[in-house]
């Protein structure tokens, strides 16, 4: 079977890597090409770049960033953030992304998912979903970096997106993002039992145990950010720990 993937995520604003907690208080964390290359050397299975620029000028950097990162990267690259239409996705794919993630625009216009899947194939079409707990009543989709709650049920949304042709789900727990308290495993179980496409767990990773929990909850990949950017650990040491726990990752 395919090995579970460890995927470092770079949040990029105006061409620079940034980090924050719950998408707020962003601070500079370096150059995307240097960082992507370093994580590739550590054994990353894929890289995700999410452009979090607030302005159209800032977002213009995303294509440039993609192109520069591609030159050094011999592993898959997923790029998201600010993809509003098919042309935005095309520009990123032509620049060197292997997959494109859509989020807010797909919530506003779900037919965008089908258009992307038809044009580029499901294996290129990633739906990013930010999920916030709704008390004891499941999770709702939040958009615009967590600023807007949509009232839409996460599991239903993902099910309909899979039917429209999404090939992979990047599922971020808004409650856990940047907190290092572990992934929201109930959220992962709810989603991975509802759909048959790959789900990437995101939001809250701190330890190899957290990654293992996500994989045992049905995720086929785990996104990691803060703990790598802060130098708390490396991809290879996480992988060694997972291997010693009997999880077969790519060595």
């Amino acid at each position, binding site marked *: *079977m395919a090995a579970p993937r460890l995927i470092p995520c770079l949040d990029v604003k105006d061409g620079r890597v940034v980090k924050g907690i719950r998408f707020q208080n962003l601070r500079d964390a370096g150059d995307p090409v240097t960082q992507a290359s370093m994580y590739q050397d550590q054994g990353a299975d894929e890289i995700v770049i999410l452009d979090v620029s607030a302005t159209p000028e800032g977002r213009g950097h995303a294509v440039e960033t993609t192109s520069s990162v591609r030159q050094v990267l011999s592993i898959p690259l997923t790029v998201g953030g600010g993809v509003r239409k098919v042309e935005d996705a095309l520009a990123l794919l032509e620049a060197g992304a292997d997959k494109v993630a859509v989020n807010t625009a797909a919530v506003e216009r779900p037919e965008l998912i089908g258009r992307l899947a038809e044009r*580029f*194939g499901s294996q290129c079409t990633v739906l990013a979903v930010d999920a916030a707990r709704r008390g004891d009543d499941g999770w709702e989709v939040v958009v615009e970096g967590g600023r807007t709650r949509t009232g839409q049920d996460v599991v239903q949304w993902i099910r309909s997106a899979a039917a429209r042709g999404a090939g992979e789900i990047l599922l971020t727990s808004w409650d856990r993002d940047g907190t290092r308290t572990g992934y929201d495993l109930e959220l992962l179980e709810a989603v991975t039992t509802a759909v048959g496409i790959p789900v990437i767990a995101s939001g809250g990773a701190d330890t190899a145990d957290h990654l293992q929990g996500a994989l045992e909850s049905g995720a086929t990949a785990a996104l990691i950010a803060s703990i790598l950017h802060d130098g708390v650990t490396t991809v290879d040491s996480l992988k060694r720990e997972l291997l010693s726990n009997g999880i077969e990752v790519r060595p």
Partner: protein
Amino acid sequence: MRTRLIVVPTGTANTASVNAAFRRLGVEPKFAADPDEIRDADFVVLPGVGAFGAAIDRIDEHGFREMLVDRFEEGRPTLAICLGMQLLGEKSEESPTATGLGVIPERVDRLPQDLTVPQLGWNRVVPDPRSRFLEPGWAYFANSYKLAPIPEGWIGATTDYGGNFVSSIERGDVLACQFHPELSGPWGADLLGRWLNGAGGRS
């Protein structure tokens, strides 16, 4: 003389990774503009992203079919990647009305329904020891469809995803991979290097 490596434009995008991989190996790829370029090139790469039917339509629109089939039949240095490998078959469950290149007498089927599909991730490649190009290792896959079994007259590699499927086949200087060598890290780069160096026809 410079090595001529021609990429067949089968789809809308995603050749940037293939181009970047060959550039890192010191070869500058160029898109095929007309069928003669496919005939004359030292190396041809048939990448593939998107649907079987759409890619075949694109090949036929450009009039590339005959030159491609000739290269594959003659075992000239030609690399087919992912959907590109599936295009060698006769038919695909993905696009039942489309006619593949028919270089191998096989049909492309969907991966079993009870699995996570598409297969997106790294998986083990187990090559026939007689393979000229392949070594055992981990490769990156992004596929919903598969070929099985290894066609007669070809040397192959298999990979397990709810049962074995064909992850690579080779014959002469033709190499076809279900995985993406350009996205398979150093293992994939080494494979591309062996194909460039080992395949004949380099001018």
